[in-house]
């Protein structure tokens, strides 16, 4: 006997399953027109690969996802592509999405098929490719591409593969009937998945209200390692996290996926689809749908082509439209209502309930919460539903999040037992939606702020760089000025005026200073008899320098060099000097002629 664990909470709503298990699975037939949505999985929408007017064969790919997450979509039967356009799809929002409209030609002609003789001879990636090409996405409800799920990252070794046959929602019997009638397909698909994952343990979990299914699975699993485990009936034991807990005692960490703890859950219908894809080369073009509810004369399960309008199925099940109170897609606990019957069957549609108004009556008016705590008693995630409700209603989303709002699986157990008839799940959905919007806005605002801050920083940096450059330029200019001045002055001091040598400039300055000192201290020396020879030499030297300077100036002018001004000034100075030297020479000559006139 396999050890079983229990999960907290849970409820026992009336099962209402016997209505749809009295008949075997019937083929639903081919409707006049198929409406095939292109987004039936999580990820990118498939893009059509056929044109309007094309004739397609059964199983032919009509749309594919070229890049990103997703799986292709196939023609469920042979026929003509009538159009491609928007049509309401089964989604809680009731919005329309892109669909391919196919007019069946009634021949139901298959495309050429090439089934794999022995998948074990192929490598795993090829088998995963087969599963992807068959358009298989989890048929339990989420529609996650199965090939991606079956190739977890290397560090997430799956030790337990679970086939979810719990089917805990009332009314739904699609998996139950599949296990009863197609047990071998289920096991074959499970074997393929087990071959891909190499788990240590394979378990099929079935609630104890489905003894026939459990028996059929046991028979089909004879001689294999697969365990068929019958678990107590309690909603929501078929929730992934709950089933894992029941069968392994492990808890999927908050925010994590089962692969984090080495477990994977697969759906019964998905297993059948995998088996058909690998062994028959049949893509996922039909599924078992439970048609039930008090407004149907012949409730039961049908094998319906993907794209079959609900109205077609309901009519063939003998529905009495005037009795329908609400039309639910999925189960009564987590399903959503359909606005009309024109929406098509998709890969994830497991059940349609045409319920009378007495069967699923309108909820009584909401009353104040009396904090009775029934909701917390039944919550399978061990949350505090009433606190979440208070916070959601008060729009204190941070507090709701703090109380782990996002761990809520929206199973509806709390609302089911609420004595005040508060639509609790609706409040949680509202809060989650608001938080997601806020997060998106926050992220957007953060990005904007980051961009703004980056821009500010850049502007500041540029400003600083500019400033720096300006300072550097000013410094360079000052240095150049000083250098040029020095140059110029050096030029006055030395004959070698063209040299721009700092040392020379300094030497010139020193010399100048000495000259000035000499000029000051040399005043009394003037009383001495002037050295005519020296003065004459000085005058000649000054004349020679002036000539050189003038030559330089002419050259600079010809080159339009930027030291023209300087040179001009230097030339002017030298001219003065030449004049002064000439003057001094003349004075000296005169004083030598009449020394008595010498004063001082």
């Amino acid at each position, binding site marked *: 006997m396999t050890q079983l664990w229990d*999960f*907290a909470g849970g409820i026992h*709503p*009336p099962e209402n399953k016997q209505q749809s298990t009295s008949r075997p699975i019937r083929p639903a037939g081919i409707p006049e027109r198929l409406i095939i949505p292109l987004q039936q999985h999580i990820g990118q929408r498939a893009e059509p690969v056929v044109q309007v007017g094309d004739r397609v064969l059964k199983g032919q790919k009509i749309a594919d996802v070229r890049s990103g997450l997703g799986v292709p979509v196939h023609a469920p039967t042979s026929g003509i592509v009538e159009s491609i356009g928007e049509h309401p799809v089964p989604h809680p929002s009731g919005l329309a999405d892109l669909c391919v409209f196919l007019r069946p030609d009634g021949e139901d002609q298959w495309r050429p098929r090439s089934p794999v003789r022995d998948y074990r001879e192929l490598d795993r990636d090829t088998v995963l490719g087969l599963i992807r090409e068959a358009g298989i996405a989890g048929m339990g409800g989420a529609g996650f591409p199965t090939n991606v799920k079956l190739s977890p990252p290397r560090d997430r070794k799956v030790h337990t593969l679970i086939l979810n046959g719990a089917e805990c929602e009332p009314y739904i019997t699609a998996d139950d009937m599949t296990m009863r009638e197609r047990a071998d397909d289920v096991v074959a698909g499970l074997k393929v998945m087990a071959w891909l994952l190499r788990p240590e343990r394979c378990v099929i979990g079935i609630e104890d209200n489905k003894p026939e299914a459990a028996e059929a699975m046991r028979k089909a699993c004879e001689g294999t390692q697969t365990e068929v485990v019958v678990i107590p009936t309690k909603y929501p034991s078929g929730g992934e*996290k709950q089933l894992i807990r029941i069968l392994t005692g492990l*808890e*999927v*960490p908050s*925010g*994590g996926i089962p692969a984090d703890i080495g477990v994977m859950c697969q759906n019964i219908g998905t297993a059948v689809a995998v088996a058909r894809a690998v062994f028959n080369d049949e893509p996922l073009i039909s599924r078992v749908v439970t048609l039930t509810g008090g407004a149907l004369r012949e409730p039961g399960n049908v094998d319906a082509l993907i794209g079959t309008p609900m109205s077609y199925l309901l009519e063939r099940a003998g529905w009495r439209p005037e009795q329908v*109170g*609400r*039309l*639910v897609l*999925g189960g*009564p*606990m*987590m*399903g*959503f*209502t359909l*606005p*009309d019957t024109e929406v098509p069957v998709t890969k994830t549609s497991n059940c349609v*309930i045409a*319920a009378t108004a007495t069967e*699923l*009556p309108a*909820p*009584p*008016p909401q*009353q*104040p919460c*009396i*904090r*009775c*705590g*029934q909701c*917390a*008693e039944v919550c*399978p*995630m*061990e*949350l*505090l539903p009433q*606190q979440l409700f208070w916070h959601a209603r008060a729009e204190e989303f*941070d507090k709701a*999040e*703090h*109380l*782990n709002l996002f*761990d809520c699986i*929206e199973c*509806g157990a709390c609302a*089911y037992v*609420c*004595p005040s*008839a508060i*639509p609790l*799940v609706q409040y949680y*959905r509202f809060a989650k939606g608001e938080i997601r919007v806020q997060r998106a806005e926050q992220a957007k605002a953060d990005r904007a702020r980051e961009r703004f801050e980056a821009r500010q920083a850049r502007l500041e940096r540029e400003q600083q760089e500019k400033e720096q450059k300006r300072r550097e330029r000013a410094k360079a200019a000052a240095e150049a000025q000083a250098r040029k001045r020095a140059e110029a002055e050096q030029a006055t001091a030395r004959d070698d005026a063209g040299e721009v040598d700092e040392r020379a400039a300094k030497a010139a300055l020193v010399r100048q200073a000495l000259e000035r000192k000499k000029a000051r201290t040399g005043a009394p020396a003037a009383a001495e008899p002037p050295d005519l020879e020296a003065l004459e030499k000085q005058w000649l030297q000054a004349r020679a320098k002036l000539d050189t300077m003038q030559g330089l100036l002419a050259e600079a002018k010809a080159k339009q060099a930027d030291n023209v001004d300087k040179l001009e000034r230097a030339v002017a100075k030298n001219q003065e000097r030449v004049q002064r030297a000439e003057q001094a020479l003349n004075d000296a000559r005169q004083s030598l002629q009449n020394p008595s006139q010498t004063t001082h």
Partner: protein
Amino acid sequence: MAFVQQSSPHTHRARPTSRVMLWVILATLPGLLAQTLFFGWGNLINVLWCVGLAVVAEAAVLWLRKKPLSVFLRDNTAAVTGLLLGLSLPPLAPWWVSAVAVVTAIVIAKQLYGGLGSNPFNPAMAGYALVLISFPVAMTTNWPEAAMLFQGAPDFADTLARIFSGTQTAIDGWTMATPLDEYKHKVATHTAAEILRHPTFGEGIARGWEWVNAAFLAGGLCLLALRIMTWHIPVSFLAGLGLMSLAFGSNPDQHAPLSLHLLAGGTMLGAFFIATDPVTAATSHQGKLIYGAGIGILVYLIRTWGNYPDAVAFSVLLMNFAVPFIDYYTPPRTFGHHKARRGLPSRNRG
């Protein structure tokens, strides 16, 4: 064709609040029956009077608050408040004492705080505490001597006259101290054996009271079996009271014995019908255990060292104060988490 659009879940199989309250009312009937059998018509008259007044008071306030009477009056919550007051007030308490208690409970403790679900304090106990403090004499001298109905107890008309007109002629010497009161006041000067000779104790633990408490216990167990409430508060209440009694009052010559604590006074009524008021109790299982144990401990403390012979009302109100604090520290661990997230979200997160 358009059908009803509704958010899941689409089925709802709950006991509505009104039915929950009805079960609570039904579960008190054994206790009321025992009270009537052992103490005469007083409690029954009180209950009818209080329930009627509570419903009228509720209707008046709802009308003033412009709330739909048809919805809110049908939830039976006002009736339960009145019922609990009728069961816990002294059987011969004059009509105006009950009236003050009921009006306080419904108008002030419940409706002024926002009505059903919004009141922080147990309405019945708020009303009870008010009259206990305001009219101590009326609240302690109107406990009748235990006498089997039709076997010595005053008849219905006499009781009615006593309650509504205050005449005492026909029933002179008919009242006596309750067992808890008697024990408390005698224990300092008498031995246990001497105290227990007093007729209020009868041959068992506390004449009449033991049956009343047993009947409330039985009714409470029915509510547990029906899953109207969980076991946490009653069990922790009784455990808190019992452990205190064992720890501090094991000598009957010094303190009232455990049997008296459990089966006299309002113990079982308090544990199963008053402390379990969901609106004013703690939320999580752990919180409920703390809340219940706190009430049990306070009941013992006040009964033993306080001024009042019984203490359910004060204990419940004191723990009502503590409920937000308890809830703050006792959220359950959520599935898939290692630890419970206590307290409030930190502001500087992220």
